[in-house]
């Protein structure tokens, strides 16, 4: 994007722009998108600061907080982390000024806009490397930043995505759909294509900022996975770094549809423009990874499985007319069959799940109904698949869980021709 265009379309406030001018050029930019994160942001920023001063003491650095209208003082907590010659937010010694500035990009949160603000700042500050840190990553350690930034800084990678030690039932949407489908479609084994912590090179950031249709509301959702997909599509160098434990976050049932929009919606949206890229790919390749590709913890976790299955059955019944538009007749029939099974016999098989997902992707592509309705309709089916995943892995070891996920991935890869056939309308 040219500077003129950036300025023309800029949503950056004059005050923020003034602060960026004062920051000047940086080597590393740390982006922290927030919205009412006062409870967690303080320690996180302290960890960021400690990490920067430990691992990158000589670099020119700015922490940029893109805030979505916090009313709990989040921004102030970030700004107080600055280390300058008039005040210092740290007991640690800094060789040079460590900037920490905050801007409110909107009065309501929007992840895409937060990322855009961070990308715009990175471009204006000509950052060599940028890292985005979630304000909820309370388990973050000082090693995280080093693990994310070093491949960019020292090894010329363009995108570094995290791998974590997760609970076996954390991120079921990721392990049962986003990861295996991204892997099958694009041919790369990226564990966390929708990452809350990631780092990228300045050139990738600028490229994404220039290409992404930021003004379209739909494009703003799931910008993190779009970012990953843009890196894949652009042939950028991608790697993974193991960060350690990521705490299980309890999600409300109502959070599922927004999560589907942000991840699956973005994944489905990426298929059409990148068809020539992904359609010839078969199988998948590993990408360079520092540390473990995945680790699971097994401690007991209370999940209301019955509710998942009930919501699946109810959804299949209530949304039949919608599913008729989306799914093939055999797939729908099979879903209706298993919806009638009792808990002991219920099983949403891998093959059926892959077929379901691929048929949804094609329906999305062909816009058989509103794309948003398609995404919403996937929610009850996902719950059914989640139920099966929970049942099949409830007594499994970490290896068993890993093997089951790998099996699903291979199923997605095996059935990719099915996706292609439907995509081009032969089925």
């Amino acid at each position: 994007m040219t500077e003129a265009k950036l300025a023309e379309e800029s949503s950056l406030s004059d005050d923020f722009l003034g602060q960026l001018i004062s920051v000047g050029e940086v080597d590393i930019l740390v982006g922290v998108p927030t919205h009412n994160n006062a409870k967690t942001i303080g320690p996180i920023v302290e960890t960021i600061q400690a990490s920067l001063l430990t691992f990158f003491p000589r670099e020119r650095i700015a922490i940029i907080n893109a805030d979505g209208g916090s009313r709990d003082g989040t921004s102030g907590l970030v700004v107080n982390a600055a280390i300058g010659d008039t005040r210092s937010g740290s007991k640690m010694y800094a060789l040079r000024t460590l900037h920490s500035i905050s801007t409110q990009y909107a009065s309501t949160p929007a992840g895409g806009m937060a990322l855009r603000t961070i990308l715009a700042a990175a471009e204006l500050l000509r950052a060599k490397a940028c890292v985005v840190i979630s304000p909820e990553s309370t388990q973050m350690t000082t090693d995280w930043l080093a693990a994310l930034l070093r491949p960019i800084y020292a090894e010329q990678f363009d995108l570094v995505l995290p791998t974590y030690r997760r609970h076996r039932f954390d991120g079921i949407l990721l392990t049962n759909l986003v990861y295996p489908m991204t892997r099958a479609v694009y041919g790369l084994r990226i564990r966390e294509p929708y990452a809350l912590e990631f780092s990228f090179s300045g050139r990738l950031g600028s490229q994404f900022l220039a290409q992404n249709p930021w003004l379209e509301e739909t494009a703003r959702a799931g910008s993190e996975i779009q970012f990953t997909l843009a890196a894949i599509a652009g042939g950028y160098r991608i790697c993974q770094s193991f960060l350690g434990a990521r705490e299980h976050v309890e999600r409300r049932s109502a959070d599922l549809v927004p999560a589907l929009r942000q991840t699956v919606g973005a994944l489905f949206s990426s298929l059409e423009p990148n068809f020539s890229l992904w359609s010839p790919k078969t199988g998948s390749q590993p990408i360079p990874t520092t540390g473990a590709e995945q680790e699971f913890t097994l401690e007991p976790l209370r999940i209301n499985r019955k509710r998942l299955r009930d919501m699946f059955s109810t959804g299949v019944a209530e949304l039949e007319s919608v599913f008729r538009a989306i799914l093939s007749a055999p797939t729908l029939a099979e879903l209706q069959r298993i919806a009638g099974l009792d808990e002991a016999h219920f099983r949403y098989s891998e093959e059926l799940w892959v077929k379901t997902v691929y048929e949804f992707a094609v329906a999305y592509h062909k816009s058989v109904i509103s794309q948003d309705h398609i995404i919403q309709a996937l929610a009850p089916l996902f719950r059914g698949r989640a139920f099966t995943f929970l049942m099949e892995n409830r007594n499994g070891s970490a290896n068993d869980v890993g093997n089951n996920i790998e099996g699903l991935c291979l199923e997605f890869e095996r059935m990719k021709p099915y996706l292609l056939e439907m995509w081009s309308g032969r089925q």
Partner: protein
Amino acid sequence: MPLEQDELWYKRAIIYQVHVRTFYDSNGDGVGDFQGLDQKLDYLVELGINTIWLMPFFPSPLRDDGYDIADYNSVHSSYGTLEDFRKFLGSAHKHQIRVIIEMVLNHTSDQHPWFQQSRSSQENPRRDWYVWSNTDTGYHEAGINFVDTELSNWAWDPVSKSYYWHRFFSHQPDLNYDNPAVREEMWNVMKFWLELGVDGFRLDAVPYLVEREGTKCENLPETHAIIKELRRKLDEQFPGKMLLAEANQWPAELRPYFADGNEFHMAFHFPLMPRMFMGVKLEDRKPITEILQQTPEIPPSCQWCLFLRNHDELTLEMLTNMERDYMNDSYAEDKAMRLNLGIRRRLAPLLDNDRRRIELMNGMLMSLPGTPSVYYGDEIGMGDNIKLGDRNGVRTPMQWSGGWNGGFSDADREKLYAPLIQDPVYGSPAVNVFSQKKTQHSLLNWMGRLIAVRKTTGAFGSGSMEFLYPANHRILAYVRRLGDETILVVNNLSNAAQAVELDLRRYKGNILIEMFGKNIFPRVGELPYLLTLGPYSFYWFRLRRI
């Protein structure tokens, strides 16, 4: 014309540090001498220098460039005679140039007759003039200054079969200041030179005069008492003369050397110097403002002495390990450039011969609070020779012209006390006084203008200091005030153009007059004052309410 009477002359001084050996050889023996220095006084006047600081010129085996003195009351024969010195001093005063000389109080050469007598027997009356011991275990908490060459501060003397204490090289035994006779004799030495007419002393290595068990043997109260006594005698018998401390210490430890205005008149600000280099490399004012914030107030009659480079390595002692590593990696990539805890390079090579950075650094030197000291040859951007041992690479002959021996000496080249800088960038054909004098915008002529502009106000030498803290951290801005004079200094530490908004509301109604071109800048109002600065550029503004 006698020297202008001015008790606080050192606050208005522009010091030029020179070793007589390096400056100009008048008799063609390959070594600079006092007659040669005398002949070059017009050059220094033209540059704007009003004080010369002479490095040691006493008889010496020259194992530490004259800091190993073998006779305090004479002149090394290579540099001339005592009469030559007397003539030079008179001539300097006629040129309105004061002369301060080096005085190495802490130690002598092991060739000094005092030490020879002291070591000769345990019963010798001078035995107790030095610090002797039967073991090498005392004062073990004291640090070693020359870590690259010395393993201990004790050295075995095979003559008297005991150990003697030395904080510097082992051939430089420390005098024993617990002995009143030593204190008296060293005052007599100072008196000798004061009676000849010198204007002050740079007292070398002052923190180390006294040793006490269980301490680092630095900055001890007993040392301060000795200096107070010297100062009292100086003020009583030679009013208007000045003492300058060489004490490479942190600001809080340096402060006691000013006491209540009754120890040193001046002290070098060692911690500031490397931070100026660091600030320019980091493009961040933080190291500079931080150290000056930590610098305590000093009595009104006292003064800091500022410098960019001197005859020693660019000392990194007053830095943290992290800062030291950064400086070494930034300014001494070649390990041969490193010596002890410092970097043995001259100003121009340190700054990649970047004229803009050289100007910026000199601009800060001349405008930060204190009296500036310019190291000979840096005014023309001389280079160094790291192939020469120790610190000799920054002590090569002054380059007066592009001719034979750089105009320094008529001697055969092999007779020169040290080889000239010969590389194509810094060699005398490229860098010399003669050609720079003829070029209006040469570094030499620019330095002359800089000094001249500094001299137009007393605010730089004696004024108060107030930092402005614009949001742009690459801008170092401060206000110097003296009486009704107000000077605004704005430095861009970055290699890119910068915009900066300065909060000058308290000066509302003033117009800014740029002090070099005397151009008028807009009047200060309520709004932040916007300035743009080119890479590494700086402004000095006089604020005037007209």
